[in-house]
């Protein structure tokens, strides 16, 4: 039976809301398929505003991968702003997809991609507007299976009550596997309802179904154990890893919105994973090992994507783009190909070395020069050892000098505050470092008006990292430390005026910390916050720290216990049954090395260039490092004559 579009009702509301174009769909390269001829139907949600969600690569890739299947249909849905939410409630319009404006309740699956935990309240809004019970336990066969993915899904316990399942790791093959299970179950006549479907998914070993696990607690509140509560459910659920990125050149047809979004460019992922071993970095830990796309594969994606989208800018994405084994050839090859055109290329890389500046220069041959950001992350040599970010002060000075000497008037430096073992002194030293940057910059450029901006964020310990046991710095101490840094910069009469400081207060970091390392008991806080009006928690104008703290105390959750408490070696962590491949013992040893680092801890090198140090991922996940060089080059493109010429 076809499902009615809600657009005729929605369009009556749109004249009354801000930026209505974000709700109408019709993006270039969007796909609308026939409802009845699809065997399996996915609604894909990015739980933030359209302007943030539309450019999200994860959703864009899965949307295309799924729609390429003949009998599968995928549509997208995003969080609606409060002005439209209010009208939708008043006039009874359900949460809809932007492609064909179908109610999300009608789909087989609602797949939600969480890049950050701060999207959790937006999931609840969407479920509620969609007429889907908030608690998974209350859903019936008429409701979609709600599946969480994205980096935050590596600890989905705080949202365990609200999702039916979670998938860890790369989604391309995982969504096809889930589709196959659903297709078969429907072809069998949907035996056993959603319970059997979830059971079939759980049995694959690659889909986590929280309801099939019981969590027992110790009297002191720590977790005693997490055990499957029915036969056939695996003890641990593994992450998914796509091997051979050249086989998965998505997005092939980037979505191009009419509305303005946060990234007005197309992106090509040049490799996945990072093994630099920075201890704070969850992305680096959970995406191992490194898998490169080949230079020729990249060249083809750039060409095809530009033709399909009409974008003017291409970003070469990855966790550390300058690390691609053939990045020099890639930068040169692409710069040659697009020289003299209006196409500009950018390489978001924060690696602290002069080669990065050379790359940026190469890519800006077309005239447009993007900003340069370097991330020493820690203010002192000591703390950089603790986090395994082996950058010396001289490296940094050399790098920025090269940048200023090559005509950049401004560089950005990225740091963190609240790292394990950190003292005020480690942070205040950032001011000294920034002064040296300006001093060196003036000397290198011969100009007095160069600047640097220090951007500093609060550190939040994340699951599946060596810092998963660490104590998070409370927000008062974070703020106090940041103020000392501010004062130190201001007190610098000679260089202070050339240094900008950008920081946020420590409060949102505490909520992020609660959600990152929380367990199932934190779900009640999320629900309470949502009921109290919590929406768009990633936006400072919508975020309310008080609302989170009040909700936590209402439901009896001690926020400090989850955030500032250091865990010991044998504590069962809420995500221990979710397998990222990292060996827990290796993580613990790395954590111990880290704390010892100030004296004699050893540097963990990058396993791309040194022997494997047995973090556990490759054997555990049956994967291996895939890097070049391939030795291939990018040939020039033959310019096509314009077809519209007279």
């Amino acid at each position, binding site marked *: 039976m076809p499902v009615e579009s809600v657009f005729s009702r929605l369009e009556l509301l749109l004249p009354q809301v801000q930026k209505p174009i974000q*709700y109408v769909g*019709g*993006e*270039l390269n969007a796909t609308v398929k026939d409802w009845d001829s699809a065997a399996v139907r996915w609604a894909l949600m990015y739980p933030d505003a359209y302007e943030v969600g539309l450019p999200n690569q994860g959703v864009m890739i899965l949307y295309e991968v799924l729609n390429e299947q003949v009998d599968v249909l995928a549509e997208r849905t995003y969080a609606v702003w409060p002005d439209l939410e209010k009208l939708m409630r008043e006039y009874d319009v359900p949460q809809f997809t932007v492609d064909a404006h179908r109610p999300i309740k009608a789909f087989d699956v609602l797949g939600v991609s969480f890049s950050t935990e701060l999207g959790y309240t937006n999931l609840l809004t969407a479920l509620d507007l969609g007429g889907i019970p908030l608690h998974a336990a209350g859903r019936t066969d008429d409701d979609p299976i709600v599946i969480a993915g994205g980096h935050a899904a590596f600890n989905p316990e705080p949202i365990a009550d609200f999702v039916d399942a979670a998938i860890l790791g790369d989604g391309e093959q995982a969504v096809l596997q889930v589709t196959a299970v659903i297709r078969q179950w429907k072809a069998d006549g949907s035996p056993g309802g959603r319970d059997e479907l979830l059971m079939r998914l759980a049995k694959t070993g690659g889909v986590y179904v929280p309801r099939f696990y019981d969590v027992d607690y110790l009297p002191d509140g720590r977790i005693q154990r997490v055990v499957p509560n029915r036969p056939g459910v695996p003890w641990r659920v593994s992450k998914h890893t796509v091997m051979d990125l050249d086989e998965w050149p998505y997005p092939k047809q980037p979505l191009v919105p*009419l*509305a303005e979004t946060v990234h007005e460019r197309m992106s090509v992922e040049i490799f996945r994973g990072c093994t630099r071993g920075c201890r704070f970095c969850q992305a680096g830990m959970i995406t191992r090992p490194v898998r490169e796309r080949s230079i020729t594969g990249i060249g083809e994606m750039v060409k095809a994507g530009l033709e399909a989208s009409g*974008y003017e800018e291409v970003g070469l994405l990855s966790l550390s783009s300058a690390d691609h084994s053939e990045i020099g050839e890639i930068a040169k090859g692409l710069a040659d190909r697009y020289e003299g055109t*209006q196409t500009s290329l950018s390489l978001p890389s924060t690696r602290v070395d002069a080669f990065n500046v050379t790359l940026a220069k190469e890519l800006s041959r077309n005239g447009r020069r993007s900003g340069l950001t370097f991330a020493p992350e820690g203010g002192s040599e000591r703390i950089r050892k603790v986090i395994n970010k082996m950058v010396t002060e001289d490296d940094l000075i050399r790098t920025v000098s090269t940048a200023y000497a090559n005509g950049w008037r401004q560089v950005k430096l990225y740091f963190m505050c609240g790292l394990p073992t950190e003292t005020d002194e480690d942070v205040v030293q950032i001011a000294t470092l920034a002064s040296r940057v300006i001093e060196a910059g003036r000397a290198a450029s011969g100009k007095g008006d160069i600047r640097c901006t220090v951007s500093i964020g609060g550190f939040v310990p994340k699951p599946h990292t060596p810092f998963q046991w660490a104590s998070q710095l409370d927000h008062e101490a974070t703020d106090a430390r940041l103020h000392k840094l501010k004062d130190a910069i201001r007190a610098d009469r000679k260089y202070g005026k050339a240094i900008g400081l950008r920081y946020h207060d420590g409060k949102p970091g505490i909520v992020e910390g609660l959600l990152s390392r929380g367990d199932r008991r934190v779900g009640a806080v999320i629900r309470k916050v949502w009921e109290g009006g919590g929406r768009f928690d990633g936006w400072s104008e919508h975020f309310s720290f008080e609302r989170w703290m009040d909700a936590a105390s209402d439901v009896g959750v001690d926020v400090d216990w989850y955030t500032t408490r250091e865990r010991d070696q044998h504590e069962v962590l809420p995500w221990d049954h979710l397998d990222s491949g990292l060996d827990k013992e290796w993580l613990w040893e790395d954590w111990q090395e880290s704390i010892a680092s100030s004296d004699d801890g050893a540097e963990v090198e990058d396993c791309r260039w040194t022997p494997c140090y047995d973090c556990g991922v490759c054997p555990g996940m049956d994967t291996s490092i895939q890097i070049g060089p391939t030795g291939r080059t990018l040939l020039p493109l033959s310019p096509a004559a314009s077809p*519209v010429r007279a």
Partner: protein
Amino acid sequence: MQRLRIRYAKRGRLRFSSHRDFQRALERALRRAAVPMAYSAGFSPHPKVSYANAAPTGTASEAEYVEIGVAERCDPERLRAALDASLPPGLDVVEVVEAGPGSLAERLEASHWSVRLPSLTLAEAERAVGLLLAAEAVTVERVMKDGKRLLDARAPLLAARVDADPEDGCAILDMVVRHVTPAVRPDDVVTALRVVADLVPAAPGPWIWAATRLAQGPLQPDGTVGDPLDPDRAAVGATAPGPV
């Protein structure tokens, strides 16, 4: 440099695009269609595109205009087809002509609008339009970025009448509005109708109206709105396309 004038329509759900949304979409479509654009000189060159009097966000239009400069001579019809194919459905390129002498923007003196008013009965709509035409001036308030602003919605209204939609009998306001600064938009006229006639919507729900610009161009002696591309077609000896 050859200059080309483009008439396009903004239809269906794409009426919710803002002028900025259209600008981005057009510039991307020009690249996708491989139109050999002329660029401005300077440090960050821009393609030569000039926009004229765009319809407000939320209103549909059959008569929007934009002028572009190209570095190599283009065939107007081929350019029309290529650009239309590169824009999303709903932003439709109706006609492209080579620019003759004179400014396009200056020819856009007034607009012909059709506004569906499903919230009103035919009789209510007729009464309200009668009252509006009889008034000297009707001040309405509009919320703008920099605060509230008062406008006279009556003075630029050159003609107005109410028809019934032959299909569903819905009241349709057909009107000609002179372009003034600040512009008086269809929603201002709808507000003016509510003000003069003290109207409340017939059914509970939001106030519903849907405006479409049918034409904009020079004011003809008979009070109708002419085709602003006529002089351009005359200059190259082309004829107007049939109804679209």
